[in-house]
């Protein structure tokens, strides 16, 4: 299968196979009007299979949430057809407005227009907990 290389944009590589659509949705990539390629189950020397997302636009990605969903992913910034920068993912101290608390007893289930906020409680296990009720976030 041939997918054109992008000239200017971002390549999210080494995504755990099967997680590309989740990343696509959580990063709201559907809102972009540029070309986006989602490659699923590509061959990977490291993991056997991987997903890749290519975005033909220089957007500001929320790398924090990406680190939470898929810590193995790598970010390549492309200019004039060349990789000019590789960015490492770092878990953010808090994740706002992306994840939703699933605890039915949490105030976020009833309070109007409340922003769902998760705090990093264990960097080693990438564990986040709801700021309000301490329920563990699931990705």
């Amino acid at each position, binding site marked *: 299968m041939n997918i054109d290389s992008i000239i200017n944009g971002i390549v999210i590589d080494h995504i755990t196979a099967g997680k590309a659509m989740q990343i696509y949705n959580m990063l709201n990539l559907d809102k972009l009007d540029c070309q986006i390629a989602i490659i699923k189950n590509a061959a990977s020397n490291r993991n056997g299979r991987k997903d890749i997302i290519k975005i033909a636009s220089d957007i500001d990605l929320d790398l924090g949430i990406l680190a939470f969903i898929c810590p193995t992913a790598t970010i390549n910034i492309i200019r004039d057809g060349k990789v000019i920068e590789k960015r490492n993912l770092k878990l953010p101290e808090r994740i706002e407005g992306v994840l939703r608390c699933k*605890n*039915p*007893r*949490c*105030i*976020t*289930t*009833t*309070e*109007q227009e*409340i922003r769902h906020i998760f705090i990093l*409680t264990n960097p080693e296990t990438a564990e986040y*907990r*709801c*700021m*309000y*009720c*301490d*329920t*563990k976030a699931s990705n």
Partner: protein
Amino acid sequence: MRNLIDILDLSVEEIDELIAVGNDIIDHPEKYREACKYKTLATLFFEPSTRTRLSFEAAMLELGGRVLGFSEASSSSAAKGESVADTIAVVSGYADIIAMRHPKEGAPIVGASKATVPIINAGDGGHNHPTQTLTDLITIKREKGRFNDLTIGLCGDLKFGRTVHSLIAAMSRYPGVRFVLISPEELKVPSYVKNTYIKAKGIPYEQTTALENVIEKLDVLYMTRVQRERFFNEEDYLRLKDCYVLTPEKMAMAKQDLIVLHPLPRVNEISVAVDDDPRACYFRQARYGKFIRMALIMKLLEEANK
């Protein structure tokens, strides 16, 4: 603005200071009769709780202050659909300090984000209840004289029992503490509580389903009620509600200087026959709760006025 949302908002030193003030109030109540004169406490109870609300109101009245508020959501604008944030923003204009109870976990954090006066969490669902923990701590200190080198048994609903989680968090900060966790499988301490406050600190603990097998080791026995309101499924509640009953026969197996605590209300997890045992501290505990709340109200008002 200084609030009390979680017991860990207070340092060990601040807890010591509050207990010292609480003890001084018990010994010299006349010194504090006008400590909060012209100040108003709002008790906003979106969920009924006679004991905690009355304790707060008694505390403020004994400090010479005034109280206003509501005792259930149906008699507040919450019944009309008003948000917690809006209610607190409005009441901030009517009171100098707010004690709020809400069935939803984290509601006091939302309240504190809009408040212009100190907020005290008087219980948020199955999550936190820091003033109950302060009550537990002043009781342990008064009855045992120390916090260190104690074997603390927690018995009953350790899953939804917010007072249990807060007490574990608070006691885990003292040296020489050991925990014995006594509960049915379905109501075990959540793993994050165990991992964060017990395992991560290397505190010795054991888990068991049988109170009678461990009661002889305990210095403190903290009994809890299986709470109907925390279950979505009535069948589960009925199956688990009578899993532990403390009886005089079990008390006969315990140390002579054991103290038995309970956040109350009790249903039938402690036999009434135990009440006359001098080791049964739960009614004294409820009384001490008023004094530690007096100390807390004074502290937060003082800090708000700085």
